[in-house]
């Protein structure tokens, strides 16, 4: 048996992983059968991807809305370019902030270049915490907006693997 998967198998495996592991005692064996490989090959490939940094993490992906985290705020700020890294790093260290990204401005439609996600159970508390955060970091006077979500139409994992593939499913 070969230690690595062929390209078609490896693409098929990525697509299966994007859908999630089955709740079976030997989940990787189940995936291996579907791509015509051995369990050990699948584990070796996943370990290799993990070492290469393809994954941010591997584990349970929870639905924060179903868990009561319904106050989902996107805080957007217009930070002078010279300060963006410093401010981004400072806000990124705040426990309240789960994601903190720099994104491009699209003038004149969109002026904001720093995006922070804040999730909570109660809107009023999230609003108060964002206000306190901005004050603490002396950002209250810069242009910013807080966009709360009102409806989730879709929430699932990314689909990166190309759709067309020569891999056939076995079993």
């Amino acid at each position, binding site marked *: 048996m070969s230690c690595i998967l062929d390209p078609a198998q490896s693409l098929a495996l990525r697509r299966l992983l994007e*859908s999630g592991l089955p709740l079976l005692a030997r989940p990787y064996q189940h995936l291996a059968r579907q791509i015509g490989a051995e369990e050990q090959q699948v584990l070796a490939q996943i370990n290799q991807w993990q070492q290469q940094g393809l994954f941010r*993490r591997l584990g349970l*992906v929870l639905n924060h809305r179903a868990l009561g985290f319904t106050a989902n705020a996107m805080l957007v700020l217009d930070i002078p370019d010279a300060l963006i890294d410093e401010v981004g790093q400072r806000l990124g260290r705040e426990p309240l902030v789960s*994601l903190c990204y720099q994104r491009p401005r699209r003038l004149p439609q969109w002026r904001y270049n720093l995006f922070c996600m804040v999730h909570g159970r109660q809107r009023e508390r999230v609003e108060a915490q964002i206000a306190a955060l901005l004050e603490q970091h002396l950002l209250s006077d810069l242009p910013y907006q807080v966009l709360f*979500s009102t409806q989730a*139409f879709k929430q699932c994992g990314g689909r990166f693997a190309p759709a067309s593939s020569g891999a056939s499913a076995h079993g």
Partner: protein
Amino acid sequence: MPICAEPYLEMAQALGCSEDQVIACLQRMAGHGRLSRIGPVFEHRRAGASTLAALAVPAERLQQVAERISQYPEVNHNYAREHHYNLWFVLTGPDRPHLQRILDELQADTGLTPLDLPMLTAYRIDLGFALGDAP
């Protein structure tokens, strides 16, 4: 989660319960919609391309446009938000031209011009949740 042949058994050993209990608990969580899936969260800069896009949709068309956008397998998050730009979605795909085709298609379909806001720098990516003391 450990990468091994029997991950639920290892989780059970760490928790001091049986493998069946772990699997039953995860099945319950999935049934209630609290567990979306089990597996890797991909690092999208290595896994392919992604962008955050937004549309300013007239209120009476919001539902219809949102449903159109959710149909794309490349769309993984799609939220209404309180703003002039009221529909926000994340596109992921194998490469940037793939995403551009979808953005162009959406513009032609809806007559609305999407904001295209790919990530430039990540200062924090924390996809885990502290379930206890969040606001």
